[in-house]
């Protein structure tokens, strides 16, 4: 067992300043596109749905897609073209299920490019993208959560 003293993990002595800072965590801000994906992930078959979305990332199953994107076996050109394809499918004219599935794939591509190629393949602000990826990572199944979480941390100032 480590001898190093650990910080307290109770909230018995909550100062007004800290309480106000913690209160800020209650803000949700304007609704983002990724929130629709997160809401879908939180339904009973959410993770199954996500796996289905991932299987659209090129040929093969979700497991194949995971191997390519999560393990860094997809080159940047493939990831970028997949991201562009799914970005075009997110267009307003498409049915909601299609748009949601494409948004899921879009974020997976962005995360893979950040983690394995150190490349931002979107013009979104790093701060907002980091927040979106962090929230998404907290709702996705493994191994996607790990990939997306690493991408979020890459961009985050809050480390």
């Amino acid at each position: 067992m480590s001898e190093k003293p650990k910080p307290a993990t109770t909230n018995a002595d909550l100062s007004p300043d800290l309480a106000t800072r913690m209160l800020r965590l209650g803000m949700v801000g304007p609704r983002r596109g990724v929130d629709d994906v997160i809401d879908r992930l939180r339904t009973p078959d959410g993770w199954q749905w996500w796996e289905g979305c991932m299987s659209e990332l090129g040929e093969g199953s979700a497991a194949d897609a995971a191997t390519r994107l999560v393990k860094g076996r997809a080159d940047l050109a493939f990831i970028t073209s997949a991201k562009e394809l799914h970005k075009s499918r997110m267009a307003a004219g498409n049915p909601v299920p299609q748009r949601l599935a494409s948004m899921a794939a879009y974020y997976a591509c962005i995360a893979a490019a950040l983690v394995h190629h150190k490349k931002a393949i979107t013009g979104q602000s790093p701060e907002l993208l980091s927040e979106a990826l962090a929230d998404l990572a907290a709702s996705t199944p493994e191994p996607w959560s790990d990939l997306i979480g690493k991408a979020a941390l890459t961009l985050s100032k809050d480390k």
Partner: protein
Amino acid sequence: MPSDVFPQTLSTWIRDRLLDGSGGGRREVDRHVMEVYAFPLRVYFLGTRDRALGEPDEVIQGFFADRLARPEFFAQWQASGLPLRRWLMNALNFYLKELRRQNQRGHPGGEADTSEPEAPGADPAAEVDRAFVVSMVRAALRNVQRDCDLNGLGPHWTSFFEHFSLDRAYADIGKDLGVDAARAMVMARTVRHRFQAELRRMLSIDGPHGEIDQTILSFVEGGRS
């Protein structure tokens, strides 16, 4: 109890529990009110000229025992259109007045009120708001921590609390938990969602409010004064 006693606009959480005929719902509401509002009311009491009326915790408990026993208490709050913390503050004022009268009756001839007047320039509502934020955040943390413990998310709680409350880096938290920094961040984020939902639930109970983000901002701005 007829279902139209509590209008639809009453905090849904409170309304649902008050309509539960078993009494368990009412007890749950009372527990919530005592847990979240005892501290701000105590702060308010200590800022009044009535603070000599008794030991603060005893006065506040006496207030709860008296007012929460009244069946129409929450329906009257709804009719007031006030946030719950303001309604309770006003109700405490009336209760203190009653205590004062009782004390005077118990001491014929009436002793002069020798307590100090309220501090000039003090803003009791702002003080109550600041105390309400502390109390609500503390209760939300406690509830979420309990929920995490019950659901096997103890390490997630640790990551959340140590990062957002103690400002520890995810890399350091991760070392303690045996995970990498990204995993520690995702674990903290999982709990952050629960904490966010719990805070928003408590704020909606205190309603009527406008948009909850705006309400939070107004508390944050108030906390700076």
